[in-house]
């Protein structure tokens, strides 16, 4: 018996035709795109917010362990419910606005700090595909450019917070943030150009596809046509390497590795993490731009900062560490299980980078202000430009 006929018995003809047309609307290409995109957005947001709260927890635990302490271990098993307690605390606190602050901009700033990092997540391919649905919210052709453009907007939140608080420490934090941005943003963008030259596209999905074929950007030696069978036969493996290898592919590794180092270090400045956390600088500026914020206003800055960390880690993963791909692991077109594995691989890589962020925080002391400027202008900018020319020379003159 036909299922749709069976179900239609329970509805009046008019209602059934409405349901059918609704269903058709849902399954039409446009409708399908809309509801899957909405679902993906909601899913990603839930994952990211969960990840954010547990990154805060991990930050506290890892920093404690590095300093030979224990960290929060009271709320729930090993303190795993600590983020819930923190959220409850922040929600219940008084949302205080200083009398001298500019109310509108003061309130707007905390939202501006939260929104851009979330927007960046929109173009990141966080998985291959699940049931035929690509796991990118928006696969846009200017993906990498979009990421750079949007992530620099988050500075406005900080600058605005610093200005509208009408207080000296936030003001200093805001000024520091804006001048810090000028010095690192150049090298952040320029360091990516060798990748675009190599791949020939700004689309993050295509960059990931390139890395599946040619190997990750930090080690682009993956031979083409590699599979489990070739791996088990040494001769076939050797043959695959010989076929896929060329002088160009070995040499291009040098500029790509320099790119990786530059981008990774600039990412610390982008996300206001130590050793470049000058806008916050707890010891000097009492938290910098968010000194005057309390309750959810502060929580939004906090969330924004950690979402920016996750988005930054996602960008590094996508551009340099092969995105959701893992050698020998098939993509989502081989079944939903592999689709889920790809998503898990992406977030595992992100978590590893987040750990490195935290690890570095407790290793390197804060740069002095002029040192950061010097590093950005005298060193990173020149290195990034030279790196572009190096990559161009290798791509043009060395035989592939």
């Amino acid at each position: 018996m036909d299922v749709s006929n069976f179900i239609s018995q329970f509805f009046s003809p008019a209602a059934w035709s409405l349901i059918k047309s609704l269903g058709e609307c849902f399954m039409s290409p446009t409708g399908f795109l809309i509801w899957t995109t909405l679902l993906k957005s909601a899913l990603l947001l839930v994952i990211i917010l969960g990840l954010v709260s547990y990154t805060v927890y991990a930050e506290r635990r890892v920093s404690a362990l590095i300093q030979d302490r224990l960290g929060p271990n009271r709320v729930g098993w090993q303190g795993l419910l600590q983020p819930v307690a923190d959220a409850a605390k922040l929600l219940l606190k008084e949302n205080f606005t200083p009398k001298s602050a500019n109310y509108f901009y003061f309130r707007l700033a905390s939202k501006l700090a939260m929104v851009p990092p979330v927007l960046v997540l929109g173009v990141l391919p966080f998985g291959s595909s699940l049931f035929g649905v690509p796991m990118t919210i928006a696969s846009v052709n200017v993906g990498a450019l979009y990421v750079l453009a949007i992530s620099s907007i988050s500075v406005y939140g900080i600058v605005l917070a610093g200005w509208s608080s009408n207080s000296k420490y936030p003001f200093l934090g805001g000024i520091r943030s804006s001048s810090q941005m000028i010095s690192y943003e150049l090298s952040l963008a320029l360091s990516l150009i060798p990748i675009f030259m190599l791949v020939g596209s700004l689309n993050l999905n295509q960059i990931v596809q390139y890395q599946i074929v040619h190997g990750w950007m930090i080690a682009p030696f993956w031979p083409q046509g590699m599979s489990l069978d070739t791996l088990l036969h040494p001769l076939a493996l050797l043959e695959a390497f010989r076929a896929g290898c060329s002088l160009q592919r070995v040499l291009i590794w040098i500029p790509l590795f320099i790119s990786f180092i530059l981008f990774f270090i600039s990412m610390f400045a982008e996300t206001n993490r130590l050793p470049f956390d000058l806008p916050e600088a707890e010891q000097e500026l009492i938290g910098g731009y968010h000194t005057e914020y309390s309750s959810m206003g502060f929580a939004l800055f906090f969330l924004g900062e950690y979402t920016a960390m996750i988005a930054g880690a996602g960008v590094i993963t996508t551009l340099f560490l092969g995105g959701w791909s893992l050698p020998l692991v098939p993509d989502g077109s081989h079944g939903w299980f592999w689709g889920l594995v790809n998503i898990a691989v992406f977030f595992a890589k992100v978590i590893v980078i987040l750990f490195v962020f935290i690890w570095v925080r407790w290793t390197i002391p804060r740069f002095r202000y002029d040192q950061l400027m010097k590093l950005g202008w005298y060193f990173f900018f020149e290195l990034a430009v030279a790196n572009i020319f190096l990559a161009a020379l290798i791509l043009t003159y060395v035989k592939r």
Partner: protein
Amino acid sequence: MIVNRKKLNWVERLYLPAIIGGLAITWKHFQRSLLGKGVITMQYPEEKWDAHLPEWYRGAPTLVKDEHGREKCVSCQLCEFICPPRAITIEPMEIPEGDPWRKVEKAPRAFDIDMARCIYCGLCEEVCPEQAIFLRKDYSITGLNRNEMIHHKEKLYELGGVMTGLVFKWNEKK
């Protein structure tokens, strides 16, 4: 004194080797702490200092009784006078007729120590001619208001308990 800075060579000026060395050190600490070694944090309410306190620890001042069950304090009020923050208040009383220790003449009717004022200096213990007041190992003194922070006589004897090995200077007296 002028300290001459060592001229750094170009590898040192890259700072990357130093940063990697630093990362190795922090990783070593992380790994050691993860395995539970090196962490010396005491889980406070469950684990307490009690077992680790030295014999001479100056905790809360208490009153003690001797083996005969006699309260050692004779209400001379020396501790009350010497107490720097004036935390001690004593109300003396004559020992009534018929008491076996009538010859001691005086005992405290009330003996209050305001623990909100006490500075644990131990001068009361030092000045006491009767070995009646001792600073014991209780350090966690809490209360919800000022009145709860005052230790009355009963509480002081409860904390002090019986102290043995003291001089019985009243036993021989008639």
